[in-house]
């Protein structure tokens, strides 16, 4: 038993403390979080735009948005990232991090657009009509009834979109970005103790995911079970 504990302490020392390695881990974590947050921000905006185009009454916009969403949702985010990095922006000097943000924003934007659409369509149209009968304008009813209800329907799926996004950012190492995954991999390679380093990395990702769930559960009122 003490042997096991000693091993762990030794591993922590070797992997995280020697040469202030934990600072490098924190830096990697910062990169991962930055890419995730920025991608989510732009992805949500893009999702909103795509969704409104997809639901527009003009046929051309509708079809175009449908096509874009289908392509973005259907292609692997890693390939999109590599195409952007090695082909589209190959000659530019844009920082790889921004290219990654673009790739993930495109991918999650498409998913979020569909999520928004399905949530909006799931709202009870009859309640909307009831609001109109109380004198609400179309826009008024949309903001008072549709948005809060669609938001509620979308919330749990939006959570998993975020968690998925965070996990998928672990592939940015392919385009020279030193994110959390790349960092722990490097440490493992350096110390020759990959088990500890990689496992430690998994723990941090787990922590991030639960932080997201925690953030979402704040402010949930009691009695509001539906």
């Amino acid at each position: 038993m003490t042997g096991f504990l000693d091993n762990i302490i030794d591993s922590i020392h070797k992997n995280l403390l020697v040469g202030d390695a934990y600072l490098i881990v924190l830096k990697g974590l910062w990169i991962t979080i930055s890419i995730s947050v920025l991608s989510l921000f732009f992805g949500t905006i893009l999702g909103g735009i795509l969704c409104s185009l997809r639901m527009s009454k003009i046929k051309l916009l509708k079809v175009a948005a449908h096509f874009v969403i289908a392509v973005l949702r259907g292609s692997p985010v890693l390939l999109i990232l590599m195409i952007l990095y090695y082909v589209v922006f190959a000659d530019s000097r844009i920082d790889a991090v921004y290219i990654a943000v673009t790739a993930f924003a495109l991918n999650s934007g498409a998913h979020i657009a569909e999520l928004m659409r399905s949530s909006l369509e799931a709202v009870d149209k009859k309640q909307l009509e009831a609001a109109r009968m109380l004198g609400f304008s179309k826009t008024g009813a949309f903001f008072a009834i549709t948005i809060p209800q669609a938001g509620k329907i979308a919330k749990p799926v939006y959570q998993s979109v975020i968690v998925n996004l965070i996990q998928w950012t672990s592939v940015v190492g392919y385009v020279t970005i030193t994110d959390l995954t790349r960092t722990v991999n490097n440490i493992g390679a350096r110390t020759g103790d990959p088990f500890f380093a990689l496992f430690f990395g998994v723990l941090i990702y787990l922590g991030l995911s639960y932080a997201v769930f925690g953030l979402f559960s704040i402010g949930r009122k009691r009695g509001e079970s539906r």
Partner: protein
Amino acid sequence: MIRISGLSKKFGDLVVFENINTHILKGECVAVIGPSGTGKSVFFRTIAMLEKPDSGHIFIKGVDITQKAVNINQIREKMGMVYQGFHLFSHLNVLDNITLAPQLVKKQNKDNAERKAMELLSLVGLAEKANSYPHQLSGGQQQRIAIARSLAMEPEIILFDEPTSALDPTMTSEVLSIIRKLTKMGLTLLIVTHEMNFAKEIANRIFYIDEGGIYEEGTPTEIFDHPKKEKTKAFINKLKVFSYQIQSRNFDHVKMNAEIEIFCQKYNLGAKQVYRIQLFLEELILVIFANCFKIATPNIEIAISYSDETTETTVMVTYQANNFNPFHFEKEDPDNLGMNLITRMSKKYEHHCEKDLNTVHVKL
């Protein structure tokens, strides 16, 4: 208050109603009755401009709301609608359901809106449910909240589209008692309903809707007691008389019994009495089968009616066969157990036969 002229509505080739003309005065309570699928709901939705009419005009307090230039939202503030399915806002609690429109549409401040809402909640008897969510309430409670929600906008007209059709009898009377209160508040009410007794009691005018329009209108006495036109007569008569035809030995007796039960419920007959009627008919039909239709295809017609005054149920059965009196049998014949039974169950019975048409009249 509401004047409708030449109003027509089609869905594709289907004419829902055509050329409706009517005038509803302030403070009137109009009950709209008629068979299902005759466009009663669409008529209401058109009055509220939720469906656009194909032609015709609707004047609410003199304003033609079919004109594009009219701000329909302002008109609807004065015109409430209560639905069969309640349609409360599921993400809000009861109090917020009621105060939402006054605050956002009428720009009332929160305190005033809530004070008013609490008054309305006590009016509908649900003040203690102010903080509940719609899904925690029964159907009758939800409907009463929906009425309160509509009243919060201080409408002058309320359209009730089958407000009790989704409710069981107890909940129905909860809701009806609230509507009864409203008739005394000077509101103009239009109600689509299948509760005929209720319509009779509260309405000062009845529209019978059929054949794509107001087929017949009049006071409750005119419509219910002395309908003039054919379809109205048939409709009113159907409410009073249950009829069923048997044209096969393997007829669907489960369906017949279920329909009898529904008919009896309208008159609040107890389960025991319903069972008696069902049992009596079953035995009578078996006796008639055994004696008249051993080979021939049966052709039996049943009519049940109930009188409120005498509280008696009358059963009339007619069948095409050789003269056969089901109440006439040799005493102590064990084979005639069924006949014995029906004779003992009936208070009064008579049978006569004319040209092979047997008629049996029984009072239960």
